[in-house]
């Protein structure tokens, strides 16, 4: 095997997942200005619900749909039940509320599904492909294809459709958007539903290759947030941010070792944050 090729393949797989999570975070951020720290829970919920149902004998396709629906509903409930009634609260308080939701969700998942990791069968079964001295499972290939397509489709939805323009209008000035006939509440709920859908999709694509447990959510949120920050909280940049993060993690692990992964990634995050704050200080338009 060629370690460089394998690092690129592994980086693309994890990077695609980070891109999906980052896109969901950014959509919610754009409509509410809140970094939803409970977003990664959609990944854990979809993975655990699907695994539990599949383990109980439910047909895989039904279990997958149930998982993605559960993640979507969870995300919508965050907006409807927790954020909407507190719309007048400071953004920083609402971010803390979302963090509380993440911990609450973690506890609820532990009670519901136990502490053991879980997984389920691959959707795409077949011999792994060998590319340039690296190996990629069929599920991994589809993961990259479906994941990047979904993330790209969302950027197109935001840029070229009526609902996309409503989302952007809500993000920029909710009062003005409402005056122009945009249902701000519905638009925000739609944004959170879409974010939940992407979080759930990422679990359905990745969990068969790895495993998931009740505490997987916050880790995913953190990775998604780093990718989103690298992208300057722009949906178009989320794909590049996610892939960049995934590739960086994989290359660092391959050539510097697993112990170097966190220090290098967080050093990059700090550097990006400093660079972005420089733009804010001098009147630039970027704001992470």
């Amino acid at each position, binding site marked *: 095997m060629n370690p460089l090729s394998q*690092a690129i*393949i592994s980086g693309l797989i994890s990077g695609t997942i980070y891109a999906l999570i980052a896109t969901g975070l950014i959509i919610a951020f754009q409509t509410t200005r809140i970094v939803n720290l409970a977003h990664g829970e959609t990944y854990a919920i979809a993975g655990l619900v699907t695994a539990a149902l599949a383990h109980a004998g439910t047909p895989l396709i039904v279990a997958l749909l149930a998982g993605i629906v559960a993640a979507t509903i969870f995300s919508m409930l965050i907006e409807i039940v927790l954020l909407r009634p507190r719309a007048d609260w400071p953004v920083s308080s609402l971010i803390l509320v979302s963090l509380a939701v993440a911990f609450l969700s973690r506890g609820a998942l532990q009670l519901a599904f136990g502490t053991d*990791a879980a997984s389920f069968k691959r959707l795409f079964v077949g011999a792994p492909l060998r590319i340039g001295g690296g190996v990629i499972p069929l599920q991994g290939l589809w993961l990259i294809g479906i994941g990047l397509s979904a993330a790209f489709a969302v950027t197109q939805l935001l840029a070229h459709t009526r609902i996309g323009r409503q989302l952007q209008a809500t993000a920029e000035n909710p009062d003005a958007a409402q005056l122009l006939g945009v249902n701000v509440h519905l638009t925000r709920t739609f944004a959170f539903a879409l974010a939940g859908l992407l979080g759930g999709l990422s679990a359905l694509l990745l969990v068969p*290759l*790895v*495993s998931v447990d009740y505490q997987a959510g916050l880790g995913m949120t953190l990775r998604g947030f780093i990718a989103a920050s690298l992208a300057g909280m722009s949906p178009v940049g989320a794909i590049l941010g996610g892939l960049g993060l995934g590739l960086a993690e994989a290359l660092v*692990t391959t050539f510097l070792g697993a112990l170097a992964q966190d220090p290098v990634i967080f050093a990059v995050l700090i550097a990006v944050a400093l660079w972005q704050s420089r733009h804010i200080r001098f009147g630039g338009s970027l704001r992470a």
Partner: protein
Amino acid sequence: MIRAAVLLGLLLSSSAFAAEPWKIGIIAPTTGPVSTVGTRQLSAVLWWAQDVNAKGGIHGRNIDIIHCNDEASPEKSVACTRDLIDRGVVLLLNASITGPILAAIPLLQNGPVMVTPSPNVMPQAASYVFQTSPSDLEMTKTIAAYVKASGAKEIAMIAATDASGEVGAANAAAVFPKEGIAYKLARIDLRSSDASIQLANVAESDAPLIYSNYSGGGAATVVKSYANFGLQQPFLVSYANISDSFINLIKDDMPKRLLSVGLKAVAADLVDDPAERAHLEYFAKSYQAWKHEPIDHLSILGLTMADFAAAVLENVADPSKSADVRGYVETHPIPSAGMLRFSAATHIGLSAESIAVLEYKRDHWAKAGPLK
């Protein structure tokens, strides 16, 4: 009247004293990445307590198990140890993993006696710490002997970046080269969800055996990545992964040959001693009736701690005197899953004779056949 009241008072106080339970502390991670390790061992200890209590306790005193969840964190392990000592436990059982256990040891300079089955913990003979498994070094030697006996000369190894992985990596370096076995080692972060890179680094030479020293449910990551690669070599998992929950987790990606190095007690046909066999059979049957789940290797590790505690409570006049407990344990073998033999020279209870390379065949663990 006054005499009657005094007599009644004395009777009440003596019966209250007689009913005072033995306080046994247990530190077990029941949440976090190695929760399976803690949960299964804790269940075995709780089974023991209810079994003893149902029979009237030890010397008429019930067992009171006080659990503290350290979440496999060294900081929380220290807090748990302090709390349990403050609560007056006579013995401390530790079902956690290497780092948290090592963090607790400095607090036990004056007791109480602590017992753990973690093979990575090498207690000093002058300490109050006892270990009920063979050491990781013995296990590494067992793996080396198995590989050599199969005529192989290479191992691909993956170890975590935590304290357990450090011990595993150090023992591999001490044993494999000396035995003429070439090995390639890659480290993996405990939170990692993919081991492809590590496998790419170590398995490229088609080593005849892949050894994952990684403990806990996260080790499934390595098995999954192994399956993603379509690898075919026998795959050897760590001592802490011989559990039903781990098998359940990897059942869709089961390696063609899943091996481990573990206590012979987990494979019924490897237990020769009739008393030990009867003890294990009773444990398996009673535990199943109580918990409605079968025992596994982790349960047996929990049983070794329970047997240690039972021997101490039954035979040491005052178990709160740590020096007396140490003196007793160092001079009296304790029957359990194998005979625990401690001495003033070693606080490691089992030797290499009590372990074997095992293979998962038809839903149970049995002695492994040679590598092909």
